[in-house]
């Protein structure tokens, strides 16, 4: 222990400007609010990773495939494959007026899967539609409740070739 170095550091504190500078670093390349704003404008936004080239959507602070930190905002096609869906007959409080409605999982062409709603007649929503090509066709708006402040949206898809 004789050679242990004792670091002498004066405890003078850190300059406020330096702390403010730390706070100005941006860690989020595409915020969820901006992603929702994109949906409202009819665009599906995502992030392209400089490391692996993969697309992240919905946005995350790091690449969903390789955890890469260098992400660039991109607009996605909004087209993909219907992976699965359900028809909700008993809703959560706040969604009763929407019943029956059809949440769905779509694998978009660029790679990631996203949750949305499917715009289709309940009678046509059979197992056979799984695997069909779907495309972004608007949004569904949720006005929130006492636990969720503000208005939030999710993408709505329609089956390509069906009106």
């Amino acid at each position, binding site marked *: 222990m004789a050679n242990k170095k004792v670091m002498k550091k004066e405890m003078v504190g850190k300059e406020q400007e330096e702390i403010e500078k730390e706070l100005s670093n941006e860690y989020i390349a595409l915020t969820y609010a901006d992603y929702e704003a994109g949906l409202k404008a009819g665009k599906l936004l995502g992030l392209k990773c400089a490391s692996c080239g993969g697309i992240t959507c919905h946005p995350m602070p790091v690449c969903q495939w390789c955890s890469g930190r260098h992400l660039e905002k991109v607009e996605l096609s909004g087209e993909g494959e219907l992976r699965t869906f359900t028809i*909700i007959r008993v*809703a*959560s409080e706040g969604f*009763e007026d929407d019943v029956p409605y059809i949440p769905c999982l779509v694998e978009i062409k660029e790679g990631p899967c996203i949750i949305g709603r499917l715009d289709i007649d309940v009678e046509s929503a059979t*197992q056979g539609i799984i695997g069909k090509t779907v495309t972004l066709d608007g949004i569904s708006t949720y006005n929130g409740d006492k*636990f969720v402040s503000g208005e939030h949206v*999710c993408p709505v898809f329609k089956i390509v070739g069906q009106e």
Partner: protein
Amino acid sequence: MRDVAIIGVGHTKFGRASKTSLELFSEASLQAMDDAGVIGQDIEALFQGAALPGFEEGQVMPAAFSAAELNLGHIPATRYEGACASASIAIRDAVMWVSSGEYDIVLAGGVEKALTMGTAFATRTFAMSCHAPTEGPAGLTFPGVFAMAARRYSKEYDIPLDTLREKMAQVSVKNHKHGALNPRAQFYKKMGDLKVEDVVNARMIADPLTLMDCCPFSDGAAALVLCPAEDAGKYMDDPVYVLGTGQSSGSSLSKMGDLTKPVSRIQSAKVAFKHAGLEPRDIDILELHDCFTIAELIALECMGFFGWGEAADATAQGETDIGGKLPTNMSGGLIGKGHPIGATGASQVYWIVKQMRGEAAKGNQIDPVPEYGMTDTLGGDFGTLCHIILGRTKR
């Protein structure tokens, strides 16, 4: 690290309770303490699962008040929240702390009063453990998530949906049969002779899942007393040993990949098996998280008991019933026994311990008593997974 044993277990009646959560948890805890032959002053820490107490009774921080209600002294008391897996992760951490040598005798368990909330509000608050930004605005519900998984299962394994629905119904028939025999179950003496057609023709909740594919909302509590394995003999002749645990986390539904092969469940089970030095074929009895009929099939496959896509047929052939290869949910499971979400993991452990002591209800007790048992608990839409492997002998 020391091995850990369970020396006392307690379990309230599941169903609708007029008692408060504090009373329910106290009741289960006092049963467990009496079973172990310990008193409040012996307990050094409390680990409590509770998922939604803020919504049920306007109560947060229930663990501290639970310790106070039992006059445990000013011991550390911590609430664990992992949605429906809350009690299992509380038990797992309790095991870790006893194992570390920090505490010798601890109380672990969970409590919930979900039935009291009513269906619409309970469905809303349960759906809070879905990914709020993406699944919230879509109006996804828990039955909805598993309905989507069921449709994927049908597609993935090329089983026509109507055929799959009948096979899934067998899970409900089996679990109700055993729930009806269990006096602590919500559906004791009810629906013991359910038929496949009763399940498929019941009210549709989230297509293709009907009401009878779903577990109920429930009130109830369960608790355990844990101590170091080397001390267990001082308290009882037939302690049950914790041989391995695993815990894992999932993601939003959209980023989890294949809904029929949730990585979080596969990984958690693998860790527990590795920790225990056992394999799926060693397990004699299983309590798994049958929140929906399809969930039981997916769980059986993820844990390695059946090949991918094979659990539906295995269930229909009775392989998971009493007398089969792997009796599963002989307590009635979540479907027949009830699912007070914060208590469920502790209830699962309770029933494995009871099986190992030969004290499960007649018709549910397997013979001979199991040497090795396992629990599987799922929180959210595959967001929190926990597995616990138990044995009658030390490692």
